[in-house]
């Protein structure tokens, strides 16, 4: 057997898995999105637009806002880990910040569902501490709850990547800036963040895509209207057995995530050029 054939054989199982479990279902879903009664057409997309326009906008806004907040928090955490001067505080933060990463989304939803409720733990603590009165207590179980869940869960992941990148940049650049009298905040914004921008962007894009696909959090925290596209996809299938519109909605979220990926690709291409 020639070496070439052997190589091909070795690749074959992996290739088959990708084709059978990824490419074929994806193609079926794309084709399914255009299948209407008695042929092909854009009926499913028209219906998606009529019924779920608000939900699409809502999804993009929620996920974008969450991504932005995740970026800010992970820069703050990574920055403190790199530039912090109190070794004990740095050690505690380093130990603490990763925990949410190991908690599944559905558990996050479950925890926040009782924590953020109007008479839930958070408001009870605030009332007990005299910060707010019982009359001022409001439930956070709406879009705010989703954003809180997403940010809480995804910050550690991005912070882990960013902190790693920050740790590996040339300390000399930081020391030089400090010698010249720059404040720590200025060093973070002008020296450190630009050097880890690519890693940060990768982390944020991965988070964006992950958040686009989460079903449990919107279902548990906010199944009202507007809600996220994943909840609508589940509802189309469960209530109507309607895979056409569900596929169309899936394709719409695919377009949104591809848009983000495209921005990223264009950005890196420009950098290399």
């Amino acid at each position: 057997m020639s070496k070439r054939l052997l190589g091909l054989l070795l690749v074959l199982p992996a290739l088959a898995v990708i084709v059978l479990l990824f490419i074929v279902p994806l193609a079926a879903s794309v084709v399914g999105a255009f299948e209407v009664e008695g042929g092909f057409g854009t009926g499913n997309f028209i219906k998606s637009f009529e019924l779920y326009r608000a939900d699409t906008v809502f999804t993009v806004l929620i996920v974008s806002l969450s991504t932005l907040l995740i970026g800010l928090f992970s820069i703050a955490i990574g920055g403190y880990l790199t530039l912090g001067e109190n070794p004990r505080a740095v050690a505690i933060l380093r130990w603490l910040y990763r925990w949410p990463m190991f908690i599944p989304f559905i558990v996050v939803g479950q925890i926040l569902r009782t924590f953020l409720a109007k008479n839930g733990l958070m408001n009870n603590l605030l009332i007990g501490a005299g910060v707010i009165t019982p009359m001022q207590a409001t439930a956070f179980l709406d879009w705010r709850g989703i954003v809180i869940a997403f940010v809480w869960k995804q910050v550690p992941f991005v912070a882990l990547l960013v902190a790693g990148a920050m740790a590996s940049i040339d300390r000399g650049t930081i020391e030089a800036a400090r010698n010249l009298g720059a404040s720590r905040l200025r060093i973070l914004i002008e020296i450190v963040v630009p050097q880890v921008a690519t890693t940060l962007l990768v982390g944020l894009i991965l988070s964006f895509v992950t958040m686009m696909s989460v079903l449990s959090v919107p279902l548990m925290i906010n199944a009202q209207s507007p809600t996220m596209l994943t909840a609508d996809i589940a509802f189309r299938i469960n209530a109507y057995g309607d895979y056409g519109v569900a596929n169309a909605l899936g394709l719409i979220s695919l377009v949104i995530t591809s848009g983000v990926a495209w921005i990223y690709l264009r950005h890196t291409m420009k950098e290399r050029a």
Partner: protein
Amino acid sequence: MKTILQAALAIGLVASPATAAELTVLTAGDQNMVDYINDYLGPLFEKENPGNTVRVVGTGPGDAGSQKITERFKAQADAGSQKWDTDVAVVHEKFAGPMVTAGYLEAYRPKIDTGKMVTRANADMALGSNVSGYVMPMFNSQTAIAYNPAMVPNPPKSYDELVAWAKEHPKQFGYNGIKGGASGVSFVMGWIYAYGEGDAKKLMNGPFDEAETKKWDKAFAGLKEFTANATLTPGNAGTLDMLSRGEIAMGPVWVDMFYSWQADGRLPPELKLVLPAPGMPGQPMHYVIPAKSPNEALAEKFVALATSPQVQAEGIVKKFNWYPGIDAEFVKPKLDEATWNKLFVDISPEDLAKYGKPFPIAPYNNAILEAYERQTAN
């Protein structure tokens, strides 16, 4: 390697004598459905039929669970399998009709003794489809409005009174929309029965007529206004949670869930139920046996046991607070007065007979849900 395989195969054959079978039961619904079979019915069946085991698979809450079972049957039918992997399934009413029409099911009711004890009309007609003979009701369930008497001293006796109350008490009425479970769906269906300009009877009994779906605009406009003034809760359990924390004073719930939560101490004992006029829907869950069940005789035995007066009394009524699937006259003698009355503390049998409605037939059901999405949620 070959010898090991052969040896394993031989051991496997020896270890499973021909008489012992594993009965596979698929059930849609919440975790309590799986618990019911795992903790109660399965062990009872295994005791009565030594050597056989019951394996239960939960396919998930709501219509989604039944949808999965339907798809499983369809896949095996399309593949032309001679022996399917399911012996008994428990499905929602909405899915029984399509399964019968597609020929997935065995007509087993005349073959088992308890078949004659079924008297309710919904065991013959499931949302407009004739399913007579193919299904045995496991239980009947009902939705109603739960309320906190401390905040609602005079509970509304009709949808009109409810709307008036909700207007005076903004955000104190909560329901879970239509995407978070069937108690919200049921409230919406009741709303259309009350305020739709068509004939509610036609929605429940069919036939489907496209023109009927155009008569709901006013009702949905009213519901939109009502919803803006109400609280939306996350799911069936979400409504109960918010009631128990005092965040809302009223909301639609499943009667069995309400009583079970109260029995577990997850709801304050003061909360009560009311079934407003002109009524809210309820539905049975049905036992079905696929036509290609690998252990047909055993499956029939299983359903016969599950629908026997003793099990219906002990398991369905006493343990899980459901209304029985077979005629109540057979079940009542097996229970003491107090347990039986517990089912009817808040909702009298007369109210149940008068205001306990079926869901609309499937095409109307879907049309109402989609109209809600279009006109109320958007």
